[in-house]
């Protein structure tokens, strides 16, 4: 598997990570190596095998729709770089 610069940049964009030209070359080499390792999987016949998403057969438990830890607005907002009253502030997205 070979990545060209455009592909690496596309993956980086999907992952929301900035990447410059120089890094893109470095990263593509490393990713190619890792994908080479992953490609060992192709040798295995997996027809009719049920995919395993989880180690144990678990089902999602239900609980009552009740507030358990309320009043955490102040605590939560304090952690953000920029807030205004009860809101997190980000650059304008709607003109």
């Amino acid at each position: 598997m070979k990545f060209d610069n455009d592909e690496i940049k596309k993956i980086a964009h999907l992952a929301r990570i900035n990447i410059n030209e120089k890094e893109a070359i470095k990263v593509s080499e490393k990713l190619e190596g890792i994908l080479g390792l992953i490609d060992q999987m192709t040798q295995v016949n997996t027809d009719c095998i049920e995919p395993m998403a989880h180690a144990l057969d678990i089902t999602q438990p239900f609980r009552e729709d009740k507030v358990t830890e309320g009043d955490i607005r102040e605590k939560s907002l304090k952690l953000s770089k920029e807030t205004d009253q009860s809101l997190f502030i980000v650059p304008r997205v709607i003109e």
Partner: protein
Amino acid sequence: MLNLSLKELSECLKEKKFSSVELTHFFLNRLDLHNESINAFITIDKDKSLAMAKRSDEMIKEGNQNYLTGIPIAQKDIFCAEGWKTSCGSKMLDNFIAPYDSTVINKFNAVGAVNLGKTNMDEFAMGSSNETSFYGNVKNPWDIKTVPGGSSGGSAAAVAGRLAPAATATDTGGSIRQPASLCGLTGLKPTYGLVSRYGMIAFASSLDQAGPMCHTAEDCAAMMNVMSGHDPKDSTSILREKENYLTSINDPIKGLKIGIPKEFFSDGLEPEIEKIIEQGINEYKKLGAEIVEISLPNNHLSIPVYYVIAPAEASSNLSRYDGVRYGYRTKEYDDLMEMYCKTREEGFGDEVKRRIMIGTYVLSAGYYDAYYLKAQKIRRLISEDFKKAFENCDVILGPSAPSVAFPIGDKKEDPLKMYMQDVYTISTNLAGLPGLSMPAGLMNKLPVGIQLIGNYFSEAKLLNIANIFQMNTGWHNLSPEEFK
């Protein structure tokens, strides 16, 4: 105080030989003396630790003493602890003061254990040498030119250097067992779902599991008695009755059937390590165990499968770090997209970015079936191998890691070499099984670990089997010279 087990510390506290405040002072002084040289802790807060110790002393005075009351425990910096910086080894969370307690921390607080500080780790638990931490690499107390293993390298170094009596750790692909092996400790990765993941910063949610790192199996059992248990706040937490892991710790192991997977003794394992593992097997024979050969034919696929599943889950889990609600935010940006992309470029280290990108790629349109689905199918095959193996044995024994502690920088630039460190541990995470590493010898004066893998929920048995070994050998009592 330096060399006492958790049980002995507990007895001394009960008999008022020393108080929790004195004990905590003692270990805080050890940190002053040694932390700079091994970099095991990211955050130390003496006032907070001593305030907790004072409260513990009151609990003891009131006759309200549990096994771990008053004992300082080092906490991996992956567990949210209210009021403590919880960085997960990342610049992204360098400014993050946890607003709540993880369930693990909550449980230690409830029994009156003292939080001695937050230990260093590979960034977001991604690494096997503790070299990816934003806070610098941790050094192995056995030889400070070598790595302690990872990702729980800080916890391992702290306990090995006797800077803490015991520590918590987490294991996604070997992050408890490999550092335990490289630092001469006993570490247990429990069955998936036995210890709550609530407030434990997520890496790969279907694999992550917390466990203890201590000198002995008995200490690990005492830690498990606190850490384990169902938690409604974690939807993957197992609903089953809480066990007492100390009850059967001394049971005889005569007639125990130990399975030796031939695949664990092939190329890549240092011959001297193989010899040490064989000595361990002979020790078990002497103790009355029966040895049978078993096969885990798909074990070699566990690394490729892991490097699809873990990065895939990580790319999703780590999407929460966007600079909006908490954590690092880049300084200059013109729009929201630029804010996200620059924040993540600057806030994450190279290994984390690599894994996010691999995860993004394998989940992207057109590749899902070839990678993620394929990996999930082979995960089933790996898991079935264990099922078959346990039809013929009670426990599986092999090496924990293919090498002893290696020089700092040795594998840093070659991810593939680094990933091989977990070749014997990853399959257990994929299957969700419990695994334990314990010291079994020295190679070039560096510790070698034996790994025991058990069936689901066989932690008590694993701890028992390890404890019997430790009652008859002395490897777990060794300490690095400069930290005695």
